[in-house]
């Protein structure tokens, strides 16, 4: 008898829950604008997902304090994509079925891709914040897809600018790991270097791959030492970067080491050790602690007041900027109609974000995404190196 009561109670409660959640979709109470956030709250990227959630909520608070969008308060609806493409599609369906017209989604190119297709088919404007694969915007045109983060080849372009304008390097070594991301960055770097090679200003003295997952890279290190390039650009992940750099410095290689945006991490510092990382330069999107626009200070102060720290990565700040971009576009379009908002995203010129001006190309890429070179100082702390 007792058991039956418990069951009955459970059924009544779940019915009540279902009914109350059915009441919400579409019929948003007047005075709020709902914007979806698809984030990896669980799975491999769980940390990124948490930061993204907190950042977007802080950004929404700031917007609401200033009177909201078109006088309406912003409400964030969250869906977890569990860091994988399969759950990403489910999360997208969930947000679409709730009648949302604007969403922020998501972290990781392979996770974002299936969701971006669904949003596009259902005419939902989606803005990605941590999906840098070139193919997302260049393989096919998705009229409702945008991203606030940069593209992988932006980094290669910045590298070329950096070595030719700042370092004035002549002899360059480029090393990748034969995997998608690293090889892509290396190939793009070669592409952007080509004019300089043709004019004789630079020379690529080494272009090859290492085998990821190994421990001893002394054969490659001997080779780098014999070639002695001015700049040694490494375009893959931190575990190999740390070992290579450590072994190279032990062997007496003095070339300037330039790492890409997956290198400077706490693990990299721990494995390579202070002696090796000192003076190494790393290309990165602006790190949160170095953001210096008025909007960034306002955001970081608010974030710090609530969580006692600043976001652990730039990607979550891009998520907050995705909200700022959508807010600016909805304001410009005068409503949440997806076609008008997508058009406003492409044409707006005065939207300011935490990471700088929010301008988008015809294909949905962020324009003029800033890149910076950071250097490890003698205490092993990253400092801004160029452009200052």
């Amino acid at each position, binding site marked *: 008898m007792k058991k039956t009561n418990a069951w009955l109670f459970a059924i009544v409660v779940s019915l009540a829950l279902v009914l109350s959640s059915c009441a919400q979709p579409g019929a948003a109470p007047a005075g709020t604008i709902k914007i979806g956030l698809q984030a990896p709250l669980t799975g491999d990227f769980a940390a990124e997902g948490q930061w993204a959630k907190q950042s977007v909520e802080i950004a929404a608070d700031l917007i609401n304090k200033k009177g909201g969008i078109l006088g309406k308060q912003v409400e964030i609806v969250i869906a977890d994509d569990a860091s994988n493409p399969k759950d990403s599609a489910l999360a997208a369906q969930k947000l679409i079925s709730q009648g949302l017209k604007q969403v922020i989604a998501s972290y990781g190119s392979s996770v974002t891709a299936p969701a971006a297709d669904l949003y596009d088919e259902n005419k939902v404007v989606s803005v990605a914040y941590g999906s840098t694969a070139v193919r997302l915007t260049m393989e096919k045109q998705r009229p409702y897809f945008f991203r606030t983060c940069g593209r992988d080849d932006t980094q290669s372009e910045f590298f070329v600018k950096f070595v030719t304008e700042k370092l004035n390097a002549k002899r360059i070594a480029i090393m990748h790991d034969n995997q998608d991301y690293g090889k892509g960055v290396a190939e793009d770097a070669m592409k952007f270097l080509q004019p300089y090679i043709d004019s004789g200003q630079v020379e690529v003295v080494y272009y090859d791959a290492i085998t990821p997952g190994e421990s001893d890279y002394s054969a490659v290190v001997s080779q780098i030492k014999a070639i002695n390039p001015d700049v040694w650009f490494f375009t893959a992940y931190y575990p190999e970067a*740390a070992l290579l750099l450590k072994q190279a410095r032990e062997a007496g290689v003095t070339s300037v080491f330039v790492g890409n945006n997956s290198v400077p991490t706490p693990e990299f510092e721990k*494995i390579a050790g*202070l002696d090796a990382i000192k003076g190494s330069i790393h290309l990165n999107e602006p790190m949160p602690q170095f953001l210096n626009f008025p909007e960034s200070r306002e955001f970081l102060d608010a974030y710090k007041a609530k969580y006692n720290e600043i976001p652990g990565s730039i990607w979550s700040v891009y998520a907050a900027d995705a909200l700022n971009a959508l807010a600016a576009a909805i304001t410009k379009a005068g409503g949440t109609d997806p076609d008008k908002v997508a058009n406003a995203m492409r044409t707006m010129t005065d939207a300011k974000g935490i990471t700088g001006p929010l301008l988008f190309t015809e294909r949905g890429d962020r324009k003029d995404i800033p890149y910076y070179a950071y250097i490890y100082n003698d205490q092993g702390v990253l400092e801004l190196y160029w452009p200052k």
Partner: protein
Amino acid sequence: MQMLPEQLINGLIIGSFYALVAMGYSMVYGVMKLINFAHGDLFTLGSYLGYTILVFGAGWVTATFGIWGGVIVAVLGAMLGIGFAGLILERVAYQPVYRAGRLPLVVSALGASIFISNGIMAVWGPRFQAFPEVSIPTGSIVLFGDFRITTLKLVTILVSLGLMGLIYYLVERTLFGAAVRASALDRDTATLIGIDFRKIIRFVFFVGPSLGALAGVFVGLNYTRIIFTMGWTYGLKAFTAVILGGIGNIPGAMLGGIMLGIMEALFEGFVSGAWKNVFVFLILIVILIVRPTGLIGEKIAEKV
């Protein structure tokens, strides 16, 4: 032109790690005709054990006897610990299924491999661990030209070559070694003439894994970074070295390991890093076509 000797020495270092791990594979195979898939994971476990000793136990040793004191304690501790782990593995995973034939043994070995590597992940976590910087010996010497080698690497080469020599002497030149070789040749006859086969098995399952543990700790000391999956990478290369040298034969494993390391370094240094493994395995295929028993493999006739 100092590139060639430099790459030869680089290869010798990589090769001595392969050779140390390969010897464990080969000893077990020789006696039991079993490819001990869990061997690579015992190597990893040895590395983590050395790491743990250095982080938690060896502080006062380092403080009292200097940095090399800490290293010696970590190495000996790991070798002893993994030696016993090898004995336990044999008792738990292999002994119960000896009589069931070779296939159940292999399945049991694969199971043990998965069990150990996941156990390491559960205990120490799935991320990279770094050997503590304070307990790694620093310093380097110039060998020739401007070729600089860390003292630690030099010690690594000398210790592994010394140990290989010791094991070679033990197996090839002593009465006990003769018993080990006799058991490898024909288990039944060896038992008939009074050799305690269980004792031989315990010997190979103690010595093989502890050599692996030695390699594991030295990998950690030399390269700092360890991860629970590294037994797979090293195990695969060491297994290749065993095949290259001739399976079941200890000098063959040493030769195979060192040759593999040198071939890798030479190809990476002079041709292309991206194509290194293609080349190395191509050589392996060619050698197996020309000499199916490996470079100094067992003579088939002896086994009949």
